[in-house]
């Protein structure tokens, strides 16, 4: 047997789903990180651009100061100082702005702070003193300007600016490169991850197909075969999971079903055999009893004929013998009929049921007339039946309907038929004495009588014979009745066209 995992399917499916979820989650996280990095890069690139702009503005302010101071020293016209004064007021704010814009890079921040210090020195140690000097001693101020101290300071500051700008641009480029690389990698990972997820999904599908769907389908097929009567249907049950349990359960169920059917078949055969023996016995016994009975009644006749005078008052006894013998013969005849009924071949032919009813009524013409019964026959179908058998049934039912009438009430008998699927239900309805519903089953047992023979004559074998004939035709017979309200006997016959 193939070695299998001892993990239940639920756990395996959970594990697979979890793996797929983790994969998808990881891919998502990587993509989110990449997008965030890209966005941060864009944001900081924008910030860097702003820093560059702020630096340029600051440089411009410095040049404005220097040019203003130079112009003022050369000309002593205050109007040269106006833009310089404005720049002198605004530059500290510009330095703060620049410093705050580069605060994400310590090196750049140090550079910005250095530049701020140099600008402060330039302003406090050069520009402002020079303006003051120019007010009091313009000639001295002019000689100082010639030394170009301001230009030198500005050159230094501009060199520092250049280095700050270069570094900032390098930072922008590095960030953009990094972000681009990151997003390219993220896209690659994302695509790879998605492919992997698809692969895993395909794997899961295949796995489920192979290890869940196929075994279930196998069990379903076997169930179908089982339902169709093939009790030998079994499924392989070597797995150690829920499907293994299902397969084992199925096999156990099939085993038990097969055992039950075997037992049933066995008892059925037993029953048939004993039934046949019983019938055989009844038939043989009845047949063998007929000969001595005939002898008894013959002797009774001889006694009556030859010794009637000698008997004196003994003639009544001989009558008793003759009557009892007649009764016994009737009983034996009925018994024989009963034991023959339902055995032997059915001579099936298509017959209009009205013909059968007509024949039965013909046979019963005497009693019907005697009882002043009124018989009504509805439309009846053509059926495929054994003529003698069904005729016997109709005759028996109609005869009963006439016989079990309420004294003083002429019997009303109605015969008809309804279609019920591929069967016809033929019914015989009367207005007779009816019966208790609890007796409705028992009256089909042999020799079962509800009334004394004095009230209603008969051996009580008729309905039992009807039951056997209808059963041999594949139909059934039953009665619905209430005491004093009449009865309705029904039996089913296969429709001729079915």
């Amino acid at each position, binding site marked *: 047997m193939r070695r299998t995992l001892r993990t239940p399917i639920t756990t395996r499916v959970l594990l697979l789903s979890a793996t797929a979820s983790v994969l998808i989650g990881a891919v998502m996280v990587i993509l989110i990180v990449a997008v965030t990095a890209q966005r941060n890069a864009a944001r900081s690139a924008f910030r860097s651009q702003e820093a560059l702009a702020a630096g340029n503005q600051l440089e411009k302010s410095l040049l404005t100061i220097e040019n203003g101071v130079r112009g003022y020293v050369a000309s002593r016209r205050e109007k040269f100082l106006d833009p310089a004064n404005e720049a002198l007021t605004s530059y500290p704010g510009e330095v703060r702005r620049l410093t705050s814009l580069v605060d994400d890079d310590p090196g750049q921040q140090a550079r910005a702070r250095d530049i701020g210090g140099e600008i402060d020195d330039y302003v406090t140690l050069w520009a402002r003193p020079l303006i*003051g000097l120019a007010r009091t001693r313009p000639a*001295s101020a002019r*000689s100082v300007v010639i030394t170009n101290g301001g230009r030198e300071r500005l050159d230094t500051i501009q060199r520092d600016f250049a280095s700050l700008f270069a570094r900032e641009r390098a930072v922008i480029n590095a960030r953009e490169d990094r972000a681009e690389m990151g997003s390219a990698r993220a896209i690659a990972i994302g695509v790879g991850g998605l492919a992997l997820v698809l692969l895993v999904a395909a794997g899961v599908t295949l796995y489920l197909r192979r290890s869940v769907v196929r075994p279930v389908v196998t069990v379903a097929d076997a169930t179908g075969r089982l339902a169709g009567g093939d009790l030998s249907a079994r499924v392989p049950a070597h797995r150690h999971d829920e499907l293994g349990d299902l397969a084992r359960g199925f096999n156990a169920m099939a085993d038990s079903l097969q055992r039950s059917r075997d037992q049933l078949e066995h008892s059925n055969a037993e029953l048939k055999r004993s039934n046949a023996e019983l019938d055989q016995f009844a038939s043989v016994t009845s047949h063998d009893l007929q000969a001595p009975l005939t002898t008894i009644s013959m002797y009774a006749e001889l006694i009556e004929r030859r010794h009637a005078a000698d008997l004196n008052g003994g003639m009544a006894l001989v009558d008793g013998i003759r009557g009892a013998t007649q009764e016994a013969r009737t009983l034996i005849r009925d018994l024989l009929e009963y034991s023959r009924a339902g055995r032997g071949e059915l001579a099936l032919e298509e017959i209009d049921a009205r013909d059968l009813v007509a024949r039965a009524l013909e046979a019963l013409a005497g009693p019907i007339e005697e009882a002043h019964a009124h018989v009504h026959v509805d439309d009846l179908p053509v059926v495929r039946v054994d003529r003698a058998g069904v005729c016997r049934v109709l005759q028996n039912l109609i005869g009963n309907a006439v016989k079990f009438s309420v004294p003083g009430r002429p019997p009303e008998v109605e015969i008809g038929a309804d279609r019920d699927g591929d069967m016809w239900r033929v019914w015989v309805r009367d207005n007779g004495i009816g019966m208790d519903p609890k007796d409705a089953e028992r009256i089909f047992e042999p020799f079962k009588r509800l009334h004394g023979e004095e009230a209603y004559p008969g051996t009580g074998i008729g309905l039992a014979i009807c039951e056997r004939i209808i059963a041999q035709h594949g139909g059934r017979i039953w009665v619905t009745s209430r005491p004093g309200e009449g009865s309705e006997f029904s039996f089913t016959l296969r429709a001729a066209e079915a």
Partner: protein
Amino acid sequence: MRLAALAVAALLALAGCGGSDAPKPSTVADAKPPLRIGTKNFPEQFLLGEIYKQAIEARGVPVELKANIGSSEIIHQALTDGALDMYPEYIGVLLSEVANVRARPKSPGAPYRRAQAFEAPQVFAMLAPSPFSDQNALAVTPAYARRHHLRAIPDLKRIPGTVRIGAPPEFQTRFEGLVGLAERYGLHNAKARAMPIGSQYAALDSGRVDAAAVFTTDGQLASGRYVILRDPRGVFGTQHVSPIISRRALNRYGPKLRAIIDSVSRRLTAPAMQRMNAQVQIDRRATADVAGEFLRGQGLK
């Protein structure tokens, strides 16, 4: 050095805490700001700045050195504006170019007293002057002197044509410059060629100028390749160095600061300055190293 400054600040803060009548505890944020020392725009000044800075820092007062600010005119203005606390100044230049005093007193103490008198109303103090004096002077090459028989400044008048003088730009407008030379000697055939201090020796060597405005403590003069013209009428005054300091700074750091600065100034003799100038200007040694070596030699660091 920043650590030292912080340590001192912390110590001062602790001392403040200990004082029973201190109304509130001092914190590092209350630490005294550094003393801002400025220097003018030539090597001797850089040297003086380093010497004062290192000596003061060695005694635990933080210093911020602003070197190479410019000539007296501008650095004095910066001091007046409050952008500086102190800078070493040459008394003669201060008097003639800032205070506009043209007289040349013979007594060595007189200029110092006059300078003190000038600065006092401006809330500045002149600290003790140095023993050395770095005078301005005119120098020529020996060859040029021989050709024109030059010994003193007035001899320049005899030279036909223009005498080109290599000098810092302020030479043009200073009394200790073309103004004084014309006034005292009637020297009108001289023209100043403005150039950065220090580069006039090279200009003299190459013949681009005929004479150069120099400092008597310049290391280059020790080589004997240049001749200094005598100044019989005293256009160039004595130039002892005296640190000018704001009274507010003096008050802020207490008498200790004045004592340190004075002890340094007293040791700045002419031989010491010339030696240090030569080490910086000719031997190309780092100014800070030369200053540190000097202070250690004097037991000040």
